[in-house]
């Protein structure tokens, strides 16, 4: 729930993208990246990049196209998303939609992080009942064992193209539905 409703929230993810764009613009003189903290001078320069400094530049209109999108709340819009656990047909349909929207697409967002991935990364716990023997959390908890990966994909377009792109998606959805 935390993952899809907070970290992977569709609007929040759009703002992630815009924020990255803003930072690239603001850090253009250092190649779009924070300077490496390799000496005191660079470290001090890095520390100066706090929230206030970024907000100040943003308010002054120095954030470029992405800054404008944040200030004007005209963030990129999600026009299509797959289910959280897409099936074969959903992925083929996603590929079709991506192709149909062509250059209109601003970005494609695909989940890569999992809620909980059993396996070697499993959490080992030491339950009281086991007398010092450690056990995998996924072995002891059916809830954790039952958690599945989220493999959702979303396609975003600039706000000004939203209506046009949504029509394309709707047409494709209708075609898909008519095929049964």
């Amino acid at each position, binding site marked *: 729930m935390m993952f899809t409703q907070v970290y992977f929230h569709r609007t929040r993810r759009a703002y992630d993208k815009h924020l990255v764009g803003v930072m690239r613009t603001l850090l253009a003189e250092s190649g779009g990246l924070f300077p490496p903290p390799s000496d005191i001078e660079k470290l001090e320069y890095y520390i100066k990049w706090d929230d206030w400094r970024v907000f100040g530049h943003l308010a002054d209109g120095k954030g470029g196209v992405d800054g404008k999108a944040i200030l004007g709340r005209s963030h990129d819009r999600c026009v299509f998303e797959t289910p959280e656990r897409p*099936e*074969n047909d959903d992925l083929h349909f996603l590929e079709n939609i991506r192709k149909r929207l062509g250059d209109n697409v601003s970005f494609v967002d*695909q989940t890569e992080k999992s809620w909980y991935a059993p*396996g070697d990364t499993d959490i080992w716990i030491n339950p009281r009942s086991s007398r010092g023997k450690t056990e995998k959390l996924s072995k002891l908890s059916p809830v954790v*064992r039952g958690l599945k*990966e989220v*493999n959702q994909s979303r396609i975003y377009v600039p706000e000004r193209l939203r209506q046009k792109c949504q029509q394309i998606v709707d047409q494709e959805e209708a075609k898909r539905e008519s095929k049964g």
Partner: protein
Amino acid sequence: MIKDLQIPWQRYALIVELAQRLQTKRSQFGKTALQKLIYLLQEVYGVKCGYDYKLYTYGPFTSQVLQDLDQVDSLSGVDVTSVPTDLGGYRIEPGKNAAPIKEKESNFIAEHEGKLERLINDYGAFSAKELELRATAVYVARDMQRDGKKVTVEALTQMVHDIKPYFPREEIQSVVEELQDKGHIKVAADG
């Protein structure tokens, strides 16, 4: 953030292919074996699968394999079932959509047919624990080479033993020699 869609169909097809090939080769094809076989396929046979492995508790591991496996399971390319044993393992078998997933990347599978065949012949019958040791030895040998260290049977055996003390030294040395004989690791003469 990316503009192009990245669905790793080749990796999905590979997982299905391994599940099919190993169905008759071993009693239980589980997640550890899958991890290690894909690692060996990448490192020893040079099939580019795009996985970035790190050394974990049970040898080379990447969570990306588990994510892909989970997705292929969700697409019914494979069926992953929990095996009720003390070790809490899993069994991976071909699913009802195995054919269409493989079909989508039939060229990729055909291109690497020979390498897959050799992987299965060389490593397919080993248990998860035996694969863990072999994959770890390969990983450590490559890591030593990258660091400019001289890889001898003695040094590699010692290094693997330091990482995995629960394997007897003799067993590790025998595996190192086996990998050397197969030409899967480059080992310099001792001394």
